[in-house]
């Protein structure tokens, strides 16, 4: 091994030290948290969850296709998924896995050759890509072997093709970034790519259900009507090669991947040498001003909320929401279930007006009930913030009025827009704007009532005062989540019972509003 390294012009001892350090950092580092939402205090490292997400994507995709498509399409779709996942993973963790400019401050002044450093970094990236590649290989290989049109050769041809795709994609991404901007991908692109994995899981889970439930043949018809541009996707000939046992395209793919890997390594070396010439202190640092919440609406908000104290908390929470992207991500994801119901309902023709009282008219109400049942989860998430040390400002004003301000901020930022958009969707889908407006009104009243109840249970201490590490799970809020979920279901049932009569429905909304006021006065 040592002889080989020396032949390559690599210093064996520094190489081993660097590689060991990089791998140890990968295994316990927190940087993979961007793609997984994992926090520093968790027992299992974020890298583990990255692998878990890859396994989930691959399992969902193969389960969706099993028995429904031919082997070539099965291979093509799985290989394409590998390419997308590897690309997103490399983009998100580019600096940590492939090229960290901070390396210059740690090893730049030591006698480590660029060849040694770049091989260590290249191998570190290769291990990361290999892990993802293996995670994306297992299910298509094992389950694909059970397809009626595959043979034993699938067992080695598919992993081979998958390795070709994973290595080729990673090498291509590395070449593009290392030969262009040494700083790597921009933050916005990294954030978008970080969402790719989560979105892929959601798209496969919900989209798969949609395809299976709508009875239109969905996934089985896709291979029969491929758009012409698909023939230019490199994974298509590889998919055919795996299914047909044709070795020539696989050897060609391997050669291209190997060539790309060599080019990527050369580009990485050049990038390191370029950065080495620039002293880290000479680098220009740009700091953009954090977004600020507006102040124009504050007098109006103070008037609506009944005082300056709740208005101040309202403004503070809106400011935190504008600045804390992690908090925003935690809050928005709780809407996954109601959003999925609102999308799948119309697509599967199960979104009739509740006044029709049929089995297909339950879902519009269920969407709002589901939305209300997510409130405790969102309120629990709002207890934590990365700026938790500044929460002493809230302690002064915390109490019924503070809760009111925070509650209104959460509702106006996240829930009211959803209810209004949902009412708009219903108006369009039902062609009945009055009934849709009434639907929205009851939704707002239901959210108001449930949020008042949950706020008293969950927000005893000031919000935003806990480090995010404890905000990732439901923790002590489970009882409230279950209770509010049950209550929302019961109220949804009552709503369904009165839905045929508009006046009774309006009365139901008024009753909820009064009940909300009662809860506030009695619990206070």
């Amino acid at each position, binding site marked *: 091994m040592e002889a080989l390294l020396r032949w390559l012009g690599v210093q064996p001892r520094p190489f081993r030290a660097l590689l060991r350090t990089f791998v140890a950092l990968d*295994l316990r580092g927190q940087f993979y948290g961007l793609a997984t939402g994992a926090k520093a205090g968790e027992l299992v490292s974020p890298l583990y969850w990255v692998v878990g997400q890859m396994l989930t994507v691959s399992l969902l995709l193969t389960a969706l296709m099993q028995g*429904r498509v031919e082997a070539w399409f099965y291979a093509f779709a799985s290989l394409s998924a590998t390419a997308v996942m590897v690309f997103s993973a490399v983009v998100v963790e580019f600096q940590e896995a492939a090229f960290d400019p901070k390396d210059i401050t740690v090893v730049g002044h030591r006698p480590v050759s660029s060849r040694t450093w770049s091989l260590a970094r290249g191998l570190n990236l290769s291990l990361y890509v290999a892990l993802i590649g293996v995670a994306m290989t297992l299910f298509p290989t094992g389950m*694909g072997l059970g397809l009626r049109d595959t043979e034993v050769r699938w067992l080695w041809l598919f992993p081979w093709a998958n390795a070709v795709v994973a290595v080729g994609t990673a090498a291509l991404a590395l070449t593009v970034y290392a030969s262009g901007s040494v700083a790597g991908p921009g933050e916005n692109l990294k954030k978008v790519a970080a969402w790719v994995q989560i979105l892929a899981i959601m798209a496969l889970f919900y989209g798969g259900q949609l395809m299976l439930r709508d009875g239109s043949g969905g996934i089985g018809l896709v291979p029969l009507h491929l758009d012409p541009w698909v023939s230019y996707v490199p994974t298509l000939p590889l998919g055919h090669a795996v299914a047909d046992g044709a070795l020539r395209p696989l050897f060609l793919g391997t050669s291209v991947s190997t060539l790309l890997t060599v080019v990527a390594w050369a580009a990485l070396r050049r990038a390191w040498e370029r950065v080495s010439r620039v002293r880290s202190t000479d680098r220009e640092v740009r700091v953009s001003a954090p977004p600020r919440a507006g102040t124009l609406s504050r007098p109006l908000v103070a008037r609506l909320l009944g005082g300056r104290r709740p208005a101040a908390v309202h403004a503070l929470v809106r400011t935190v929401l504008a600045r804390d992207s992690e908090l925003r991500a935690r809050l928005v994801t709780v809407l996954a279930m109601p959003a999925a119901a609102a999308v799948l309902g119309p697509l599967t023709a199960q979104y009739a007006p509740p006044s029709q009282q049929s089995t297909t008219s339950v879902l519009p109400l269920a969407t709002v009930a589901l939305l209300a049942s997510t409130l405790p989860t969102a309120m629990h998430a709002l207890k934590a913030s990365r700026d938790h040390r500044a929460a002493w400002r809230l302690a002064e004003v915390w109490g019924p009025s503070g809760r009111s301000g925070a509650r209104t901020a959460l509702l106006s930022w996240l829930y009211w827009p959803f209810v209004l958009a949902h009412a708009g969707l219903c108006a369009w889908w039902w062609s009945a704007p009055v009934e849709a407006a009434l639907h929205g009104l009851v939704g707002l009243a239901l959210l108001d009532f449930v949020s008042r109840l949950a706020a008293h249970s969950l927000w005893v201490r000031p919000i935003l005062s806990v480090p995010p590490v404890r905000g990732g799970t439901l923790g002590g809020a489970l009882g409230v989540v279950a209770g509010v979920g049950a209550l929302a279901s019961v109220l949804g049932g009552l709503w369904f019972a009165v839905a045929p009569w508009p006046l009774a429905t309006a009365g139901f909304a008024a009753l909820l509003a009064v009940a909300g006021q009662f809860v506030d006065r009695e619990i206070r």
Partner: protein
Amino acid sequence: MSAWKQRLRSPRGQVQLMAATLLGAAVFAGALGTQQAFFERYIVEKPPPVEAATRRLATRLDGGERVDLDSADRTRLYELWLQEPGSAGAGVAQALGEASDWLCARVERSLVAGSTAQRLAAIDLAQRAEQCTPVLDAARERARAMGPAEVLDALNP
């Protein structure tokens, strides 16, 4: 902190956890690969129950009566054909065959998303209507690769 938690937090523990997960996934994938019949059980079209009016319409068509069919009528007759292949005959096949593009798209869907019985019914309908030759040719190629044998037998001239 307990010993196993401390062990899990170490790089070695993380590697072991990841290896165990990947090994478990490999075993699970292999086990799922042997359950092809389980997945195929769910490949079936689920049309709504046949209404009495549809049966009456089929009887009229089979009796030689000329009826103008709209899209909903055609869909209901096709669903009758899928669910009760014996209860409709040449008149229904001929009437559906007059809208050949519609029929071919519907037969194609049944051939990929239907159960074996539904596929056989769809093939029978297309052959009686003397339509959809390209769709049946493509289905023959697919059946050669994926089966089942009954479908391939029905498609072979």
